[in-house]
């Protein structure tokens, strides 16, 4: 549950993390091209939502494929407070969090009774249901959607010409989320979620209040997914049922986390680092996602990791690590050792 290596020692993993964050920090200054600066911000945004999903889907093992509802709640809340109340979009973020948590409780509590595939399907159905409803609800602009401020009225509107401020804002949020995740992972909650992932029945027999902890994970996950949605609305300035509540949003979150390694701290970030530049450059080369090539590639990537390395990049990394740092996997009879 902790990073291998004795504390204080510079393991390859810790070096990689330090270098990685150094790069992320310096990125907008290293690349002068707006295209690449924007990619940096988008990578971080994707990492936030994937890391948020990871709390429920990776650590707790409850694979939700309907997380778009929380993302959409955050995005729409931000744009609704602007459209209807004239507030800066970011002020809608707390409302988005509230709505997301409520949605989470309503959807999550009954669905947590379901096992595996059933749970996933229920989340898909719930998300699709809400997407259709939103498409007919005037408050959120029905099928047309909502837009943010076309020109910034004050700094609070947070719409900048350059992607740089967004980059640092997102980086800050991501770091907070990752620190929280790390703390959680090492605490009783982390162990209990891992136990739930390992098997409800076994966890119960050890006194783990399974439903309660699933709900905790869900609330935390929904909160940060909602924040990601609000940040998205701030940066992009637009949301409609497809871009904010569509199933592809949910699927992207899952793939991003899974590619890097679901249930690991940096997995989602690694996934984002690979997928977002891939998507953006593919769109640029082939002229927009209208041609669908991006998703063929996404699909192909999922197929590859499913078939060959379900643990994602993180598992791949562990296999490459030098022997001394690897976890012992030798099978020994406990009796021989005793």
């Amino acid at each position, binding site marked *: *549950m902790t990073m291998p290596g004795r504390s204080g020692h510079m393991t390859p993993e810790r070096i990689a993390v330090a270098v990685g964050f150094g790069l992320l920090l310096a990125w907008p200054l290293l690349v002068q091209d707006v295209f690449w600066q924007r990619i940096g911000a988008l990578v971080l945004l994707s990492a936030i939502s994937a890391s948020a999903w990871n709390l429920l889907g990776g650590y707790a093992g409850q694979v939700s494929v309907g997380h778009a509802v929380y993302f959409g709640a955050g995005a729409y809340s931000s744009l609704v407070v602007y459209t209807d109340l004239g507030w800066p979009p970011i002020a809608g973020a707390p409302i988005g969090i509230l709505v997301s948590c409520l949605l989470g409780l309503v959807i999550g509590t009954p669905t947590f009774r379901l096992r595996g595939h059933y749970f996933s399907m229920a989340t898909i159905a719930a998300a699709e249901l809400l997407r259709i409803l939103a498409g007919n609800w005037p408050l959120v602009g029905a099928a047309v959607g909502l837009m943010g401020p076309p020109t910034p009225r004050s700094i609070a509107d947070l719409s900048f010409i350059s992607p740089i401020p967004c980059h640092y804002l997102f980086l800050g949020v991501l770091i907070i989320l990752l620190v929280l995740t790390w703390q959680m992972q*090492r*605490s*009783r909650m982390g*162990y*209990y979620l*891992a*136990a739930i*992932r*390992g*098997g409800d*029945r*076994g*966890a*119960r*027999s*050890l*006194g*783990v*209040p*399974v439903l309660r902890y699933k709900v905790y994970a869900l609330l935390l996950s929904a909160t940060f997914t909602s924040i990601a949605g609000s940040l998205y609305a701030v940066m992009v300035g637009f949301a409609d049922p497809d871009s904010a509540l569509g199933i592809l949003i949910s699927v992207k979150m899952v793939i991003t986390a899974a590619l890097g390694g679901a249930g690991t701290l940096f997995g989602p970030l690694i996934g984002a680092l690979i997928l977002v530049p891939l998507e953006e450059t593919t769109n640029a080369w082939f002229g927009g996602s209208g041609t669908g090539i991006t998703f063929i590639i996404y699909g192909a990537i999922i197929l590859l990791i499913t078939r060959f390395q379900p643990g994602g990049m993180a598992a791949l990394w562990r296999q490459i690590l030098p022997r001394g740092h690897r*976890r*012992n*996997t*030798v*099978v*020994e*009879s*406990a*009796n021989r*050792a*005793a």
Partner: protein
Amino acid sequence: MAFGAFRAVDRANLEVAEGEIVGLIGPNGAGKSTFFNCLAGDATPTAGVIRFADRDVTRATPEEHARLGMARSFQVPVTFEDMSVADNVMVGAFLRHPHRRDARHAAAEILSFTGLAPLAETRAGSLGTPGRKRLEIARALATEPRLLLLDEALAGLTPAETRLAIELVRKISERGITIVIVEHVMEVILSLTERAVVFHQGRVIAAGAPRDVVEDPAVVAAYLGHHMKRVRR
């Protein structure tokens, strides 16, 4: 306990005094597992009452059971495969020790008590059956139970492994933990338990000291009869 029209367990009574080691035995399909699951909280009896230390726990959930001090192991171990052995035990320890450091100490103590310390960092999924069964017990112990329910924890072991497992159960009893063990391996019952209760077709047909019970004609008939039914086919 009835499953629809089928009575798996019919009017079975069991009293266990603190510190005892009691064995539940009987041929397959005798109802002992169903009875056991009711005791452990994984099934709710359709009639009857279960009391633990003056508390009615008939409808208590498995989590509540653990909190009250009744722990169990599963016949087919439900190991948390992707976690290390130590982490598996820590999950149990967290029940009484909310803080990681305390839980870790408690788990370490259990690991050395059960002889699993050398395997602490091993991935639990790579253990063989004896290791997993031992881990099941260790995890349950980590919840600091007053009563430990073992479901065929010694089945499928070689004679040498069985002897070591019996030793472990004795050590657990010496700590003052009451043990109820479901088993159909006779030598285990004879060498380990102070009292045996025999199930057959959902009823208790004999109870008492293991030696006496084994020679009870009704018990012999139940086992032999069962055996003979198979032979006739």
